[in-house]
């Protein structure tokens, strides 16, 4: 069934940009989209799946290992490689939707019950983490997910490796994925220690502009009424955005960060009192991805400005009673800091 095209999403520019940045720079730590109901958070993630370019993967590998990356191969591919060349094919970048009610065994992977019962063979049956390797893992309603699963997912997302120690199995396999979470703050808050695990955090609001709201409804109806025609209408936009993504991925390793921008990023983080260095690192990585998306090879202040709210708003030392996400504070600090920088320069 055709999915709603990514480029047909009206407004929500910050969320869309954040998802593109996370695609270009998968090591960023993913995106948390927090906000109102019915604002297209899930639609955007599912649409992203259709937009993504393909990638090379080893034929027959359960983790779709990258044949070009020697260090990140799974044990089976390493064995295959030792035996000869690795055959590869182009596959879609996986976007795995974590179903609500998923159990730990299907997330982590577990002993293959069928083979164990029938043949008495101890075989590993990979789970969702294996499926999401090199792609995206989407958790809708992350604040409704059982705590032990959230902990597990964040741990794997941070380490890039899934370690399975259960039912007599002992193995590990690579599981590098971009985590995308969405939730509604009215349903309860996310544990604060989990917030800053996410690279970017965006606030998604219902559009207040009437014309925008009309366009949302208009497009939704057009899509439902005649999917094929709607897909054709946005086919060119989708292709253009896909080219932009592929270009940005290629460009990313070449993007430089000048000393002045490093200093500016550091001062911004000090000013805002973000804990640890994760904030600065994320800010810089996101700014590089932003520059790559713009086709630039040097990070400028405007790139930094564009990504700072999403990279920092969830890392401010929280006054727990303050409104949960503080994009405004980041904006204020930037306004003060950047005007100074402009004068100094």
């Amino acid at each position: 069934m055709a999915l709603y095209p990514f480029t047909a999403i009206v407004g929500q520019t910050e969320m869309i940009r954040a998802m593109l940045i996370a695609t270009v720079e998968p090591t960023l730590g993913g995106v948390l989209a927090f906000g109102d109901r019915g604002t297209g958070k899930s639609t955007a993630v599912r649409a992203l799946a259709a937009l993504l370019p393909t990638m090379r993967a080893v034929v027959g590998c359960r983790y779709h290992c990258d044949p070009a990356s020697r260090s990140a191969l799974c044990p089976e591919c390493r064995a295959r490689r030792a035996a000869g060349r690795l055959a590869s094919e182009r596959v879609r970048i996986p976007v795995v939707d974590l179903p609500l009610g998923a159990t730990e065994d299907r997330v982590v992977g577990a002993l293959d019950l069928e083979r164990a019962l029938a043949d008495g063979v101890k075989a590993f049956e990979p789970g969702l983490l294996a499926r999401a390797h090199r792609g995206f893992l989407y958790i809708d309603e992350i604040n409704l997910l059982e705590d032990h699963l959230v902990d597990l997912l964040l741990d794997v997302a941070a380490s890039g490796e899934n370690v399975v120690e259960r039912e007599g199995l002992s193995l590990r396999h690579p599981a590098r994925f971009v985590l995308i979470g969405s939730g509604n703050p009215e349903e309860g808050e996310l544990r604060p220690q989990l917030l800053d695990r996410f690279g970017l955090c965006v606030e998604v609001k219902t559009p207040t502009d009437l014309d925008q709201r009309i366009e949302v409804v208009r497009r939704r109806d057009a899509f439902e009424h005649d999917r094929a025609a709607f897909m054709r209408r946005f086919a060119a936009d989708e292709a253009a955005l896909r080219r932009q993504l592929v270009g940005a991925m290629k460009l990313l390793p070449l993007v430089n960060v000048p000393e002045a921008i490093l200093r500016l990023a550091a001062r911004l983080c000090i000013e805002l009192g973000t804990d640890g260095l994760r904030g600065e690192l994320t800010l810089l990585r996101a700014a590089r991805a932003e520059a790559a998306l713009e086709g630039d090879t040097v990070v400028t202040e405007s790139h930094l400005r564009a990504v700072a709210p999403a990279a920092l708003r969830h890392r401010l030392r929280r006054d727990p009673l303050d409104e949960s996400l503080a994009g405004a504070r980041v904006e204020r600090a930037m306004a003060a800091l950047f005007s100074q920088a402009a004068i100094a320069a």
Partner: protein
Amino acid sequence: MSPLPAPRKPTRDAGLAACLFAIDPVGLGGMVIRSRIGPARDGFLSRLRGLLPGATPVRRLPTHITDDRLLGGLDLAGTLSAGSRIVASGLLAEVDGGVVVIPMAERLDRSLAGKLAAVLDRGVVSVARDGVMSERDARFGVVALDEGIGDDEAAPGTLCDRLAFVLDEAMLDDDFVWPGARAIARARRRLAGIVLRDETTIALCRTAAALGIDSPRAPILALRAARAAAALAGRRSIDDADAILAARLILAPRATTLPAPEPPPEPPPESQDEPDAAPPPEARETQGDDQLQEEPPGDASEELAERVLDAARSALPLDLLAALAMSGGPRRAARAAGGKTPIAQGGVRGRPAGVRPGRPGHGARLALIDTLRAAAPMQPLRRRERAVQHPGPMPRVLVRAEDFRIKRFIAPVRTVAIFAVDASGSSALNRLAEAKGAIQILLADCYVRRDQVALIAFRNRSAELLLPPTGALARARRSLAALPGGGATPLALGIDAACALGIAERRRGASPLIVLLTDGGANIGRDGKPGREAAGRDARAAAQACAAAGLAGMVIDTAPRRSGFAAELARLMDGRYLPLPYADAAALSNAVRAQAA
């Protein structure tokens, strides 16, 4: 949404909603019926059933349904006897193409509502549990039977947001002439061919905006309802009458603000309701055509928007005004309209939290799949052993005690701190600001421990629940900041209110803690009459009632000098006594922590 709305003339709206739903159950999501059990509801449901094709599956979904029955999972008996994996579908996949009926939807817990919402959005149920990964079509409509009384109990907003219609008890009793299933079937066939004009989209969006409806789902649902209405009327394109009907049925019940009255002689909706909301059924039925003849829509989408808004305005729920007046703003009403109380996580008790080896029984449930997994690798060995020890027929699986795995559940640890704040004049003079500060500290502490808080203020002659239990502390902070001070001190009423809420919360599975902040200067009794002596007596009785109910409590004395009375209350409540002058941040938070533990 009040249990007993003011009598309205019977309308045909419920019947019309049922028809539209029967035409496009998947597109419209479904309906919430706010009504107690009774012949009106039963009659409505059976007539609704009559509109659907005979083979339509209709299933009841009990609120205690387990995930394996809801979503699907491993068919254990089948798998064991076949020796290969057999997948059992869940209720949602089984009801594909039909209707799910949810009785007692007000008791539906949030995670179940979340799962339903995810399936409604995708039309597919994906399962990743108990060794099964599968995706199956699950396209269905939902009829949520909400028997909640008052605004505190309602079906979860995640679900209601996706269901087009909200009907209340008074609407069910109507004189609608129900069409036959064949008329509905004809309308269904016409549905895909219905032509839409852009004016309709614009008019519905404008109306939604004017009524303060945030969710973009509302105008989308309204548009689908307008399509279904056109199909029902046998039209090829959406008419103004269809848009008007959709606005009345779908947008009006979601309104959170009153639209700014455009024409000056606009009477307030409350008085307008009688003549306008329920025109005689004949008029309503033919309304669209009449209006078409009188004032052709032409190019004026403005004008259509205005008429659609009028229609919605005239159908605004009666209690909207009252709700707005009470809350002093649309925010609270928005929640009420969304049908969700902020009482979080009604059914979290006993959330599964992984599996570990152990003996089943004593409340621990056997995790069958995991037990089998544990047993599986040992089978060849055990078979050989058994063949030697007990020659004869061999069971398919040899399970031993050491294989047993049990499910772990998290005990109900949700703590609700109920702050009962004395906002009277004497207290305001003394240190209401400091009391507020103290609460802020406690709130921060609750936040860290993921507790919920509730806020009750008492002054003059009443105690008011400013904030029902919530985990969203930003909200608590807001209502605290807005807390006014002044007036007499109805201490007994404040304690009673906290006590009642505490008992109600305990019934919901939470462990409540009452934190009373007062200077002890009671001067209003339980009967609302002034009089220091009676007030003191009543307050003592109320404190004793708290203790008798077994509620944990503490008293924070906000008087400038320690008042003997506050200390006495603490004693009667069997709780701690903390005079504020000595209660610094750390002491306060330690005290609450100790009590909550």
